[in-house]
């Protein structure tokens, strides 16, 4: 008897005569698509968890914001990042199978995002071409994430409806933090200690 057969057999025996029909789930909670995608709320929530938010009136301003944050420093970028987001003042290293050590050695990373959740102040990356491998938004100490305002949704259910579970997903709510010392939240442990979110309207 394999372990698989043993475990499944035990579970079936444990359930006994209980009919294996799906139980009725009361879904009275707010469904996906309900509520307004409130950019102001997102900005408030992000700031509340110590992310720095930069609101741009047009996409042309993104490069200036990146310059102010990372000017004069080396940044890693995903292969599909729009080149006009980068100022001349940063040294960009495109992630083409860089090693973890190479990525850890740069000062910052600039990525796009897939979705943002206003209610929780969450940015979701799905490893798309403008976001890159999960590793690049993890190892550098400064993460600049450019978010298009039409990527904002109201709540968690709406966000799940927008992303593809087959892609590796990273949900980011503020910079790396811990509550492990006396249950107080302290920012800055292993992930990027500085999270900058740059919001731009869709051109």
């Amino acid at each position: 008897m394999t372990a698989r057969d043993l475990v499944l057999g035990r579970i079936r025996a444990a359930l006994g005569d209980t009919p294996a029909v799906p139980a009725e789930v009361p879904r009275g909670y707010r469904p996906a698509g309900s509520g307004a995608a409130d950019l102001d709320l997102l900005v408030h929530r992000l700031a509340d968890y110590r992310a720095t938010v930069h609101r741009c009136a047009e996409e042309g301003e993104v490069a200036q914001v990146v310059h102010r944050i990372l000017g004069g420093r080396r940044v890693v970028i995903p292969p599909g990042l729009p080149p006009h987001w980068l100022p001349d003042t940063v040294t960009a290293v495109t992630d083409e199978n860089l090693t973890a050590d190479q990525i850890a050695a740069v000062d910052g990373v600039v990525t796009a995002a897939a979705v943002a959740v206003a209610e929780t102040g969450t940015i979701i990356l799905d490893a798309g071409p403008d976001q890159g491998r999960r590793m690049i938004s993890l190892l550098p100490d400064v993460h600049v994430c450019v978010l298009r305002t039409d990527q904002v949704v109201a709540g968690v259910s709406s966000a799940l409806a927008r992303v593809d579970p087959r892609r590796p997903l990273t949900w980011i709510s503020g910079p790396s933090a811990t509550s492990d010392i006396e249950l107080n939240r302290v920012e800055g442990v292993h992930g990027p200690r500085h999270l900058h979110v740059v919001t731009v309207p869709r051109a």
Partner: protein
Amino acid sequence: MRTFLGMPATAPPGVGHLRGEEPFPAAARRALGDAQLRRNLRHATTTIRTKSGAVIGEVPDWQQLRAAGRAIKADAMARLPELLEQLEAAVAAAGGTVHWAADAAEANRIVTELVRATGADRVMKVKSMATQEIGLNEALEAAGIEPVETDLAELIVQLGHDRPSHILVPAIHRNRAEIREIFLREMPGVDPDLTDDPPALAAAARRHLRQTFLSTRVAVSGANFAIAETGTLAVVESEGNGRMCLTLPDTLITVMGIEKVIPTWDDLGVFLQLLPRASTGERMNPYTSMWTGVTPGDGPQQVHLVLLDNGRSAVLADQVGRQALHCIRCSACLNVCPVYERTGGHAYGSVYPGPIGAVLSPQLTGVADNASLPYASSLCGACYDACPVMINIPELLVHLRAQAPHPKSEAAAMAAAAYTMDHPALYAAAQRAAKLSKLSGPRGRGLPPPLSGWAASRDLPEPPSQTFRQWWAER
């Protein structure tokens, strides 16, 4: 024994950390004498209760989410075999390998062999209750493999040669000054001028683990959720140590209790709203990672999932008790429990402390092996109110007390009482005789042994001057 194969089985003794070395009352008595421990716990649980209450108050449909969470878990338990098979197929289709482990020893063996096959002599670990439960670290060490805990609180516990005392914050019993002492003593190359400022302590952990993250080729994790429909696993964390372990190594081994499976992707949304607010008191924890098998070119290319029974099938066999398997390990019940707040987690013996531990551990091991835990509660019900998936812990405690072994004298006394109450003349005589209890002194303080032991911590009620029946007859 052959005939019992396939019957639900409790977690075997001798491996893992589900059984304490002494009963709860003895361990609790010692813990209660530690004033520093009580101060640390009171501070931490008060902080988290305040934070959690505030962010739960922001959610207009919190009760609807709780009700949905409970029902989704009940549904998953009722359809567990089909959901696990669905999960297995989806993970395999995405390039992952699924293993089944009937108990702790088998899970430890599977993980050890998987690590050995990579040639690695070190693994890095994301905080995981399942691997604590099965004693994986000890098993790896016995095989010459060094396990490195990367969660800050687990690191504090590991460096302090200590045991975890809380589901979410295993080092909750340590304050900042104690953590600084542990770091100064145990962390190689630590700055001798390290202060006890929490950001400075966090920064010390960052420096300490950085090279480990970059150079370790195998990671072991647990999983908060597994979605049967898609084969997706999810890990919820704060520090980024989880992301490091889930992203940087070549090989990722995830050990997950079979009860963690949920049916659909949409169901995940319910739990992602419930867990952070109930757990750390955040609207959302800093990082949540989700992965489905292997993603070519991104993250570990060898992905394993170990599905663990270790007593869960026995819990499932109890129609009342099985709701303990709905637990999402948020630890809200610990943070509101007046007993936990005073004794701390170590007194419970098992890696699952607090109210949920008091109902889960005895069921996983069989009640006889954790017989004192169902009594580690005042039945105040705060845990039921706090539970984001509405597990009726007080009901379970009472249910398990009925299963715990009782002394023969108690059964004899109860039988005598039942007989007396069945016979009106005897009952009237017994009520008159109750006045004789005045002989036992005020509040029972004058009772002889062994009753004096009972009265040492309890007051015997003063008998009224006349019984109800006497009063009724006279009016």
